[in-house]
């Protein structure tokens, strides 16, 4: 046969195979990611059992996709479910997932160790003795549901809605629970965000209306990270692979990080900035762009709200762009390289080189800040604002290689029921009027606010959240959680034991990533996708025709999922529908019956995800079947600069354009099934809604800010008490040398260890083996001065107490700064499995794998935590627990941090001014001591920095209405009480 005939035969075979939706070329990992099992064989995949070696034993699997639930990236996973035993044997990446593209970090595959952890919670538990006493009894779900629903119903009937609170750590889903709270009419959403990302997000929110950056690293010329984002942080796996692709294309990587992180080691320019000085350096770069004229003047003229700035701050100047340019240059003229060098400790020449790289990048400048400096410092939110100034100056906004606003790279499908109702009451405990501009709930102040203002919660859910361990000032949380006057009933919804669950009344086991349903979508490149988390054993059973079961029926023990739990709980709160709540959780197909998760997601995928029904039909599948099979769907890519889009004529009717160029219309907005959270864009006084903003004589979509443009000058900040901070700027942090005593150092406490993720990885044995200690990084000069060596015990004194840890002497830290990862120091109060599950069968001398067993002692107002037993081996159903070789488990430093709320963003400012020295006689590794009185003093001192709405609100409301807010109450609830009450 001739070669041409052979070639024709290959082509014909290829067409034939691919027409069936199957894989022709198996590919190779060296070319692309086709080395994954071909998708048409996911129902029956055969592999040799590695553990059976040298015997060649075949294992047959059904591969079921889900999404990881460890960090927020929602990377795709493929669960390998044994067809014979219906056990999950391992997890690998899902090549069909557009965000993670088949790749995972260590935490994804480690999910298998979480679901098989011998200590995991398998049954609902109810407290049997005093809170924190460690005594539990097993209850059935009905008992727990009836009890909890009864209390909630009673609170609602007595108009005590604000005593119901849901406090979430890792959401891992898009809006299900917020919509449920809206349906309940409860302003009880409380998140962890103000101890996490809200500082940076506030900075972005004030600039562009949307609160998260979506950098296009892959196409950038310069990638500027204010973080250790290649190894840890939000979306780091999807972002890291794109950063590396950008680098391969020649992009320069600039990393601001006080520590020599893994990320910094990959940088072309590593700037080890003194903590809190980042904005000064960024503004020096901005000044360089302005001085040398290398910024996108057309973009600035068209898209910045410079007219408002001139009118409000330079009333004498002509309303011309040239006047603004002069003013802009003057605004930043003081930020010289020398000034930035003096503030940051980074050489002026290095800053100049970075500035030049940024200037050369043009619009291909991708930047990112999530926590890091923004989460550490007083005024940290200004870091993100100064960072985005560089994008706004260079026009690198929603263009290839630039930074996009998240909401344009995210898709939240409209659900079957969308409660249009808003809570009638404002919750002052989470949204106190002291912090009117707080991006998110003042969650970490809860113990202080309830203690000092007399608030109480009747039903308090902690959901995949561990404030006792995660939040600052953890002893104040223990005080609150053990006080029945403040917390009536504490329900911990959690897949793992945690320090907070120890103090719960109910511990209700919720599933890990392979044991629950959720839909999530995150901004990871310029495109929009949804990922589907599903209980893989339930799906596998259905696929193998082994009988349909509920999620609870398929999961280990009685582990449940929240979707079904909340539906069930809501039905018990409103059993006859008379409260108008149950209807939001009723079936449409079977009126009067409960909504099932199958119907919920089938409806969503059929009706709200553009292109999915058609894509599924091509494979002869229903949309839900498609998502169960592939686990993810990309809606579109290359969304582009939405703000430039012309508003179509059909959306323009009786248009009015005001003097700022904002265009208002009477035409209804085009309907969208994407219900991604957005700020409120207010209409005009005559009842028109805002359609866009006029630029170049054309009405374009613009930005969802009050002005419709990028807000260089923020009227919101100016009018709500912070006129001096209305433009991107730099103010010295609370850990600036001028704000500390000479013998103090700055402690960086926020960084993650690459393989851990807060509380959730605590029961992953593989991850614990890799990382189980958090020594204190200290520079050799400081160590020599203080007589410390690597391994020395040292005492770190904060404002309210001290902790004892071990030193790690390294040049990878800025002199004058110490650093300690928050990812360690896990503890429990007794050595029983799971703190109180039946002890029968547990061997004596049992030890905790990840954390130490400690004692908690209270002497008046003082707390002391001391280790009684280190980590170590023990016998269990898992033979690996007998092989634990480490004893170190780190120190729980967060306990010793006072609350330090930023008065603008509301974010906790994590960095600490500390004194560091050798341990004192009697000190032991892991000791934590806190004086509660000092903790309260610190709270009051920081509270005094706030500018409350009662004194600074320009319109008698508690908070600018346009700002984003979870579970937004009805507008009337925004009004401050009459007469305006001064907070206590």
């Amino acid at each position, binding site marked *: *046969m001739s*070669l041409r005939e*052979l*070639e024709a*035969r*290959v082509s*014909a*075979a290829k067409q034939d*195979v691919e027409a069936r939706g199957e*894989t*022709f*070329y*198996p*590919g*190779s*990992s*060296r*070319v*692309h990611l086709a080395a994954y099992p*071909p998708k048409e*064989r996911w129902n029956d995949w055969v592999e040799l059992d590695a553990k059976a070696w040298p015997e060649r034993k075949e294992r047959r699997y059904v591969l079921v996709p889900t999404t990881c639930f460890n960090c927020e990236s929602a990377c795709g996973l493929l669960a390998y479910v044994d067809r014979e035993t219906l056990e999950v044997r391992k997890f690998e990446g899902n090549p069909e997932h557009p965000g993670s593209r088949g790749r995972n970090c260590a935490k994804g595959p480690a999910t298998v160790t979480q679901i098989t952890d011998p200590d995991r919670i398998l049954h609902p538990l109810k407290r049997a003795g005093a809170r924190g006493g460690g005594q539990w009894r097993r209850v059935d779900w009905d008992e727990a549901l009836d009890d909890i629903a009864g209390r909630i119903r009673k609170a609602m009937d007595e108009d005590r809605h604000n005593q119901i609170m849901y406090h979430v750590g890792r959401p891992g889903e898009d809006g299900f629970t917020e919509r449920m709270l809206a349906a309940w009419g409860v302003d009880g959403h409380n998140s962890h965000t103000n101890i996490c990302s809200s500082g940076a997000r506030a900075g972005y929110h004030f600039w562009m209306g949307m609160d998260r950056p979506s950098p296009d690293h892959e196409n950038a010329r310069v990638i500027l990270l204010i973080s250790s984002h290649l190894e840890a942080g939000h979306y780091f796996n999807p972002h890291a692979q794109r950063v590396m*692709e950008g680098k*391969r*294309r020649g992009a320069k990587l600039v990393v601001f990080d006080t520590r020599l992180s893994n990320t910094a080691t990959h940088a072309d320019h590593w700037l080890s900035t003194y903590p809190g000085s980042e904005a000064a350096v960024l503004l020096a770069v901005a000044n360089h762009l302005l001085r040398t004229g290398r910024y996108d003047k057309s973009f600035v003229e068209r898209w910045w709200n410079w007219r408002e700035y001139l009118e409000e701050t330079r009333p004498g100047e002509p309303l011309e762009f040239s006047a603004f340019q002069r003013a802009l240059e003057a605004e930043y003229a003081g930020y010289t390289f020398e000034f930035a060098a003096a503030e940051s400790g980074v050489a002026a020449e290095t800053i100049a080189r970075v500035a030049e790289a940024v200037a050369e990048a043009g619009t291909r400048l991708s930047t990112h800040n999530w926590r890091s400096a923004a989460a550490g410092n007083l005024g940290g939110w200004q870091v993100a604002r100064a960072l985005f100034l560089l994008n706004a100056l260079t026009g690198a906004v929603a263009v290839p290689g630039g930074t996009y606003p998240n909401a344009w790279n995210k898709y939240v499908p409209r659900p079957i029921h969308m409660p249009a109702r808003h809570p009638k009451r404002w919750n002052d405990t989470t949204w106190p009027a002291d912090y009117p501009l707080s991006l998110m709930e003042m969650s970490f102040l809860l113990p202080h606010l309830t203690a000092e203002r007399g608030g109480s919660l009747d039903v308090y859910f902690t959901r995949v959240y561990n404030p006792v361990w995660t939040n600052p000032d953890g002893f104040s949380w223990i005080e609150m959680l053990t006080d029945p006057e403040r917390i009536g009933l504490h329900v911990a919804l959690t897949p793992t034991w945690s320090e907070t669950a120890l103090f719960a009344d109910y511990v209700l086991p919720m599933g890990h990533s392979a044991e629950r349903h959720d839909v999530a979508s995150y901004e990871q490149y310029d495109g929009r996708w949804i990922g589907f988390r599903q209980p893989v054993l339930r799906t596998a059973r259905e696929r193998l025709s082994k009988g349909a079961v509920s999620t609870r029926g398929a999961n280990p023990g009685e582990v449940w999922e929240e979707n079904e739990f909340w539906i069930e709980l809501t039905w018990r709160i409103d059993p006859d529908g008379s409260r108008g709540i149950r209807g939001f959780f009723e079936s449409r197909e079977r009126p009067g019956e409960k909504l099932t998760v199958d119907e919920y997601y089938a409806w969503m995928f059929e009706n709200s995800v553009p292109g999915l029904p058609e894509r599924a039909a091509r494979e002869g599948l229903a949309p839900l079947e498609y998502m169960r099979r592939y686990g993810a769907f990309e809606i579109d890519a290359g969304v582009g600069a939405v703000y430039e889009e012309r508003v179509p004529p059909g959306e323009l009717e009786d248009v009015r354009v005001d003097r700022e160029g904002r265009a208002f219309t009477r035409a209804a907005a085009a309907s969208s099934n994407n219900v991604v959270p957005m700020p409120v864009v207010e209409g005009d006084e005559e009842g028109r809604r805002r359609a866009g903003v006029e630029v170049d004589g054309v009405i374009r979509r613009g930005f969802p800010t009050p002005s419709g443009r990028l807000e260089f000058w923020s009227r919101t900040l100016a009018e709500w008490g912070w006129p001096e901070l209305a433009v991107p700027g730099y103010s010295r942090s609370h850990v600036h040398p001028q704000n500390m005593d000479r013998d103090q150092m700055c402690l960086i406490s926020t960084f993650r260890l690459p393989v851990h993720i807060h509380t959730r990885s605590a029961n992953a044995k593989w991850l614990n083996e890799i990382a189980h200690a958090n020594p204190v990084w200290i520079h050799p000069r400081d160590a020599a001065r203080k007589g410390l060596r690597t391994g020395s015990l040292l005492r770190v004194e904060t404002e309210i107490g001290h902790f004892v840890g071990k030193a790690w002497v390294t040049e990878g830290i800025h002199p004058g700064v110490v650093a300690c990862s928050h990812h360690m120091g896990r503890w429990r109060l007794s050595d029983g499995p799971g703190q109180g599950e039946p002890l029968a069968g547990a061997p004596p001398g049992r030890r905790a794998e990840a954390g130490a067993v400690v004692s908690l002692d209270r002497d008046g107002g003082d707390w002391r935590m001391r280790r009684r037993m280190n980590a170590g081996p023990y016998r269990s159903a898992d033979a690996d627990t007998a092989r634990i070789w480490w004893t170190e488990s780190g120190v729980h430093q967060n306990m010793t941090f006072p609350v330090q709320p930023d008065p603008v963003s509301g974010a906790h400012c994590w960095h600490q001014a500390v004194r560091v020295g050798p341990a004192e006689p009697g000190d032991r590794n892991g000791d934590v001591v806190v004086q509660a009185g000092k903790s309260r003093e610190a709270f009051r001192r920081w509270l005094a920095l706030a500018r409350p709405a009662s004194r600074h609100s320009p319109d008698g409301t508690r908070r600018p209405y346009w700002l984003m807010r979870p579970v937004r109450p009805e507008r009337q609830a925004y009004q401050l009480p009459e007469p305006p009450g001064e907070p206590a």
Partner: protein
Amino acid sequence: MYRALGSLIESPVAEHERLALALGLPEVPAATEHARVVRMQRHPYASVYLGAEGMLGGEVRDRVTGFRRAVGLQEEAGAEADHLASLLSLLASFDSWRLEESGAARQALLVQARDTLAWEYLLSWTGPYLASFAGCGAVFYAEWAALLGRALHEFCEEAEFPGRLPEALRTAPSFPDPAEASAQELVAALLSPLQSGMIVLRDDLERLAEEAGLAMRAADRRTVVRGLLAQEPKTALEWFASHAHGCAQRAGERGPRRIGQWWRKRALRTADLLSDNAARLRTAPA
């Protein structure tokens, strides 16, 4: 077809069966056969045959990666850019892209890039490499090698190549004179196809040991060769000289004549040097 042929040099998977069927090849062998014939002996990487050290990676792989980048390819080739499957896949891609391209200038550039890839990184080594499958004892791979050889031969007839030899061959270090080289240098040169002009497989060494009645250590090839030379240097050198002659005879069977000549000359020179030294050993005083 190039892509299909490239895929078949990977570890066998179920999808290979329909590829083999389409190409008229025999039944796909088991993974163990692939390991014996390919993975453990005939490493399908350009760097092994075009690199001075005869080892994976190094400058050759960097050059292939650079070539991919120069033609605007950004997809992840990782550390395997010079794998035969990757190179053949890229060769096929150039033709697909050319068909999608409407501009004559772009089409010409794609043809030029395709021919450069073939000349510099494929044809420069596939001749001796494919010849090494003769007598490998695996029908599938012998036929695969013959078919790929045919396909590349036909490709050569249509393509336009530069007037000078591929870079790797032009700059190849010469085989050292065994009389002057250290034992270490000699062993390294014998196992570097680029230096010696011959491919020495583990099977070849076993044959040498058996024919000469020498003991063969269970170790890597370097250690084995060192051991063989230490036991009977004259016999071993003669055997290598004979092997080089055989390689020289097969070198011009497939592919561009100029490249074939280069490999032939190189192997013959090696044979001469080894024979001379073996003769000197014979006449040297005890």
